[in-house]
């Protein structure tokens, strides 16, 4: 027998990679954005301007980048901002956001649940409840369907 039939390496080939029907994600122009500067955020938080810190974080969110590390770092930053808010400040903050920002905030809330710390889940659930009352089910659906992951 000329063929090497002893090796079972062929079983580990991912045949779906070679399927001509494989869906290729559209190549979106990658953004160089690195997300909000952490020291900036910390400075704004120290000044007690929680809402401004949140706005800055949402406006500089690295949506187009493929760099996972950047995304992870930004999630931690935003989580810190979200946890700095007092429960009674959340309502006012949520009401002042516009629709795209609301959707983005909901994405960060769900990401925040992935990194539980002492009391973080309760705070995030409060955030979730307030954002849900304004954004509705559509807001949550968009967290699931939006291709631009956070």
């Amino acid at each position, binding site marked *: 027998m000329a063929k090497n039939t002893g090796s079972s390496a062929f079983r580990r080939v991912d045949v779906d990679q070679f399927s001509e029907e494989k869906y*290729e994600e559209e190549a979106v122009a990658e953004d160089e954005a690195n997300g909000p500067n952490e020291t900036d955020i910390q400075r704004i938080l120290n000044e007690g301007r929680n809402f401004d810190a949140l706005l800055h974080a949402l406006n500089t969110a690295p949506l187009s980048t493929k760099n996972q590390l950047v995304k992870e770092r930004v999630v931690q930053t935003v989580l810190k901002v979200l946890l700095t808010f007092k429960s009674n400040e959340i309502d006012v903050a949520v009401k002042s956001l516009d629709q795209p920002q609301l959707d983005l905030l909901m994405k960060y809330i769900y990401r925040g649940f992935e990194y539980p710390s002492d009391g973080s889940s309760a705070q995030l659930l409060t955030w979730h409840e307030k954002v849900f009352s304004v954004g509705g*089910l559509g807001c949550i659906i968009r967290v699931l369907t939006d291709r631009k992951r956070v």
Partner: protein
Amino acid sequence: MPDTFSFGIDPLTCHAWNHDHSQLALSPNNHEVHVYKWSDGKWKLSDVLAEHVQRVTGIDWAPKSNRIVTCGVDRNAYVWTLQPDGKWKPALVILRINRAATCVKWSPLETKFAVGSGARLISVCYFEQENDWWVSKHIKKPIRSTVTCIDWHPNNILLACGSSDFKARVFSAYIKEVDEKPNATSWGSKMPFGNLMAEFSNGSGGWVHGISFSASGEKVAWVGHDSSISVVNAADGSKLTTLKTDSLPFVTLTWIKENNIVVAGYDCSPAVFSYDGENVVLIARLDDSETKQQQGSKFSAMKHFRSLDNRATVESNDTTLETVHQNTVTQVTIYAGTKANCTKCSTSGIDGQLVIWDLRSLENSGSNSA
């Protein structure tokens, strides 16, 4: 008050009306198509069209030529013609697809029909007299995933399609054997078969579930799984406007006036939106007024005894929804009128109900912004 008809407990995947809505064709989520005739104030089953071997995914009834076209998961489409003895005779259409067919629509002049499929292409079929059979031509590029919905432009040439690659596209389906050379439209002037006239994406993800050309063909609207409604106005430089709603996603839509669309989907309740060139806004929920008015406090006593009667339980833990449809709406179709001026529309749902909604009451309640 909407007219509700129940066709059993099976979901209604799709439905279609004949020209004067005296007959109704629907599929109860299986391989059959049931044809009902309206007589003595009821829908009576007049025929069962059972030629498909797998689930039927689309039905369309041509009003003038009175032919029904059906397509199914078995990769086939059949054109049904009414025989003098009252029976429907099927004619198989070879679509040449290797995946399920998902949707089918007759063209406005009923000379051709288009079938969307999971094979990532659209089959446009026309009848060839010499061989006495239906021939299909494929539109493939640049569709990259299943075609979920299609709709014809009134000029019988252009075809809009939505796909699970998150895009809405307008193609030319010009077939020289059956079509006259078309005049230029706002979508373009060169329309060879399969030409991509326009491609749109609303920026975020979400499969396109339903798509519809307006009565004039100048606008196309679609609904996506990201709970959005998007409208493109070709007359205004193909401007794209998207509304991200706060409800569950819509799966079906149709224009009912030049500037109004009715949508329905997972929230089980049809709603009317209006497009004024700049924004898409909600103007009415078809379900709201009637049912809410009946929710008086006396209703809970009746509900209590009814649940006691039906289920021998004293719990008022009712799973009944407040909306007329008790589950997702699968399709909304014009019942009376045209896309330019629709007076009634019908919705079929997973709850096995077919409901006819009167849109004229919208105008009376002063929410008419057309």
